[in-house]
């Protein structure tokens, strides 16, 4: 049973209080009905399923009820970070090497990644 930090409750809680909600940062198109079959299928079904850092959604369903995002290593099942729904996707390099990456221009680094569903 994992121990998961809820960014809203600001503490670690047992997995039994949570429900996993699949890959994070999938973007539901605002013009979804005009999407091509391929784009829609990519959104609906095709997944990164990485062996390594997994960006995923959780809901603290038996706690505060909030959906949030997490970065977890799918090999060790260790969480690197959690962040609230709607917050930008954290930079992988920073997560993996918190000391070596300088603080320079963090916003610039993160912002463009926030919207896309790509690493």
């Amino acid at each position, binding site marked *: 049973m994992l121990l998961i930090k809820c960014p809203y409750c600001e503490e670690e809680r047992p997995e039994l209080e949570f429900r996993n909600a699949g890959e994070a940062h999938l973007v539901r198109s605002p013009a979804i009905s005009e999407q091509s079959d391929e784009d829609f299928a990519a959104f609906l079904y095709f*997944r990164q*399923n990485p062996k390594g850092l997994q960006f995923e959604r959780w809901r603290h369903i038996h706690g505060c009820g909030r959906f949030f995002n997490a970065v977890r290593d799918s090999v060790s*099942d260790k969480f690197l970070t959690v962040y609230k729904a709607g917050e930008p996707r954290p930079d992988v390099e920073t997560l993996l090497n918190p000391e070596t990456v300088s603080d320079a221009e963090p916003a610039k680094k993160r912002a463009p990644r926030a919207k896309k569903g790509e690493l």
Partner: protein
Amino acid sequence: MRKYSVFALAREALRAHKGWEQQWTSPEPKSEYDVIIVGAGGHGLATAYYLAKEHGITNVAVLEKGWLGGGNTGRNTTIIRSNYLYDESAGIYEHAVKLWEGLSQDLNYNVMYSARGVMMLAHNIHDVQVFKRHIHANRLNGIDNEWLTPEQVKEFCPPINLSADARYPIIGAALQRRGGTARHDAVAWGYARAAADRGVHIIQNCEVTGIRRAANGAVVGVDTNRGPINAKKVGVVAAGHTSVIMNMAGVRMPLESYPLQALVSEPVKPLIPCVIMSNTVHAYISQSDKGEMVIGAGTDQYTSYSQTGGLHIINHTLDAICEMFPVLTRLKMLRSWGGIVDVTPDRSPILAKTPVPGLYVNCGWGTGGFKATPGSGNVFAHTIARDEPHRINAPFTLERFTTGRLIDEAAAAAVAH
């Protein structure tokens, strides 16, 4: 290949079993093969075997990053059945069962296919509706599956708790008598031995690290930790790791990999004569020939490549087992383990060509791939050899996730109301 038989055993007994040959050799990889199969699990080895046996393609390498049969083949609860609802699923699983029935003789390896019957319990009216739908569809497809009354359930499996006071009383069951189990390791070893005998190279401890493609996009080989190996056709049969391998060719898959746990009890004298499954209370159980209760647990809720899962998953599974079989609470869990299962959105497999010429994929078996092993390998070999799917696997495409033509067995079971 020296034939296995009781006479061979007797002969060897006289000379301290010094005369047995290696069941398969461990050759060094050649620089080129006609076909490379990535993954030496049951499905991959069966594919190689049928490529050699039925299509005359023997210049084949099966590459395995660990030891053959060490993935889900060696980690599953070995349930075999074919009583699936849709024609597409029934077609492939029944193809497999027909092969199971003669597999020991075909491979000259006792895979211990034990048609002891698979009984799926109905606990509410919704279950009854769903099972009857299966039974009728199976009957018209020529597949055995019959309805049992609670009394017949008890007769078929005496230790089961038939009490009306049970939280979810058993109100009937669907029984496929030809369903059962087989010895998982023997399936991998039997296919490996028979394939190797026909010239197939099984190369263990050989991890694929890249898929090599020509300028026109077509596959030309793979990179491995033991160097590049050329082949114009590559079949990926990597179960939980399919996404990882396919990603090397730039193909994203409709797959997620989850940890699936299973466990066995200490061995006890025969008690449970068949395979019992219950979707409503979420458990399945059979007793191995060795006497261990073989129990399948659920998947964890998150994707993972860890081959480990949480204790709470085991808790829930054993809750259900002890509810069905209250006499089992004093048994002990002897071993538990995890596998990585690759799950598609419709819980049906993908056995198909891919957008990359020369690259074929066989994946998405989720929690139930073992039962399909011979059938899957058989039609996948056809697909690779002919560069077109067999009639049986033609519906199991990648494109169905774009068109919406899903083969959704799970959805067909719907949810109770």
